[in-house]
């Protein structure tokens, strides 16, 4: 194990059981055998289409969902089965929907203060309110906002509150679960820039989940691509952008809009056939074989191994 790794997951799996009548269960295989690590101070981006398990993966790493199998390491320690309270201070999450993620009955100050209280971070009442005010200023709000309720704020402001709340415990690692996808484009860049500034200032490590590749590329050092519960490719972000190896990543990249009509016109866009299969009954072998333009018979039978194909460039595919 590398000492620079803050987070490491090994064969992480998360299945959700769904009751289908008496004593009959079906499993949604939301995350299947994820293997990767996140280095201290870096941002790992995670992209994939809706329902591919990005959010589940992020939440499972924080054990907001209990993993079905596999292991999670934080700073070298196995946290798969430990009491989470001490780690809740170190690992935080920013949720996708800012208005739904704030308790409507608590003022902003109470929401932020609760996190401070649980981890006993404030020495006195004054210290507590000072911290709350400092956090609010840090995210571009002002201290009077502490006494207001979440519904009195706009979406962008609510997301700032969500960020302040996550920062309240001075975490080292934050899962940013599509933090900007519910916001206007103009606000998106403000929030993304703010997250970047904070990373610089506080040395944070991010797992940045999004379905917008251009946002992810902008903020991430490395990018992982997910398809139907599998991490199919992981590489340094420019490498992934310029030299995608996995057929699914290639299709994703070909769909990113280019702001130059000339290039855009000449570019060949790969369009996938069919729909994304159900994670309740995923295809055998490589899960992408039903839609892969290059699929061979082996793809149907054998699950492709997770291999390092170039330095720091991983993918799971038989034909590369």
């Amino acid at each position, binding site marked *: 194990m590398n000492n620079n790794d803050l987070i490491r997951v090994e064969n992480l799996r998360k299945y959700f059981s769904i*009751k289908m009548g008496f004593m009959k269960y079906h499993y949604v295989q939301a995350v299947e055998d994820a293997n990767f690590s996140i280095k201290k101070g870096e941002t790992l981006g995670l992209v994939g289409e809706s329902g591919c398990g990005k959010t589940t993966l992020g*939440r499972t790493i*924080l054990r*907001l969902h209990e993993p079905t199998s596999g292991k999670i390491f934080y700073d070298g320690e196995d946290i798969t089965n430990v009491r*989470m*309270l001490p780690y*809740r*201070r170190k690992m*935080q*999450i920013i*949720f996708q*929907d800012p208005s*739904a*993620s*704030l*308790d*409507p*009955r608590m003022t902003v100050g109470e929401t932020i203060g*609760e*996190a401070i209280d*649980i*981890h006993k971070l404030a020495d006195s009442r004054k210290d507590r309110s000072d911290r709350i005010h400092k956090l609010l200023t840090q995210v571009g709000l002002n201290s009077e906002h502490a006494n207001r*309720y979440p*519904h009195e704020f706009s979406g962008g402001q609510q997301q700032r509150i*969500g960020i302040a*709340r996550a920062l309240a*415990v001075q975490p080292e690692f934050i899962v940013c679960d599509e933090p900007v996808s519910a916001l206007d484009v103009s606000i998106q860049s403000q929030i993304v820039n703010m997250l970047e500034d904070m990373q610089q200032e506080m040395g944070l490590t991010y797992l940045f989940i999004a379905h917008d590749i251009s946002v992810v590329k902008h903020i991430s050092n490395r990018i992982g691509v997910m398809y139907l519960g599998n991490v199919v490719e992981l590489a340094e972000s420019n490498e992934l952008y310029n030299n995608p190896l996995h057929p699914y990543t290639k299709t994703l990249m070909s769909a990113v809009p280019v702001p130059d009509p000339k290039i855009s016109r000449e570019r060949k866009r790969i369009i996938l056939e069919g729909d994304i299969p159900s994670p309740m009954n995923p295809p055998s072998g490589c899960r992408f074989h039903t839609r892969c333009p290059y699929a061979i018979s082996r793809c149907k039978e054998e699950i492709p191994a997770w291999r390092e194909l170039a330095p720091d460039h991983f993918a799971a595919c038989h034909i590369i």
Partner: protein
Amino acid sequence: MMKFIAKRVAQALIVIFLITCITFLLMNLVPGGPFLSEKSPSPQVLAALEAKYGLDKPVPVQLKNYIVHALQGDFGVSMKMQKNRPVGTIIMEMFPVSAKVGIIALVGAVLIGVPIGCIAAYYRGTWIDSALRVLTTIGVSIPGFVVATVLLILLGSTWKLLPTVGLTSWKSYIMPCFSLAFYPMCYIGRLARSSMLDVINQEYIRTAKAKGVPTFKIVFKHALRNAFIPVLTYLGPLTAGILTGGFVVETVFNIPGLGRYFVQSILNRDYPIIMGTTIFLASFIVTMTLVVDILYKAVDPRIDLAKGGSR
């Protein structure tokens, strides 16, 4: 806020006025009268009695007279049951008896019903949830008099554990309070369960978990506060209903409360008592509903009373 209350009070007065008129007219449509019973008095005596209490006049005139007097705080005197005692005095004498049983039942129903709902929601899909669901379904399906009768037979008669009639010691409160509380307890349990389930799946519960808030505190602080609105809505009318006495339960257990008296007054056609009790009950319900509406604001800051809408 003040404007909202003023508006609601005005509405309440209209409601009470309409209830007064409708009850008065319906009451007079029912055959019989306060002075007719097995041994009816002679026609001359009857005419004299009716003249004394103003019953010889046409109904609209009677209604007008009643309202004029009521506005001056005079609700008349009992015609039969406690002859010539003022209705106000009688109600104020009966109400505390009913209210005492009612408050115990109400507090019990909330203190047991809400945790039942929380526990069922927390353990949803397990045998605990199923057991509680069976219990609460039974509770909302069995009428109060059946509960009261079964209790009387088992605890009072067969095993002789508790006194069966009246309110003599603390023991005699157990059965009436339980019979009165059983239905609302189960109803509150079901309400609390469904709204808790709704809230538990909200994103901000996950936020609380991510903060590291212990599960117990998540359920009783974050979830319950947000799930309480439907329970609160039900509590308003329930408080008024339960404090003024369960008609049936008070009759079964022979408790000298307002509920039993109301039933008897109808059977006896004691017009002023029927009217007095009805107006008292109506005002109480209307007041409690208003109190609940004001409490909404305390429970959910998103509710804006002045606009009359929510969110």
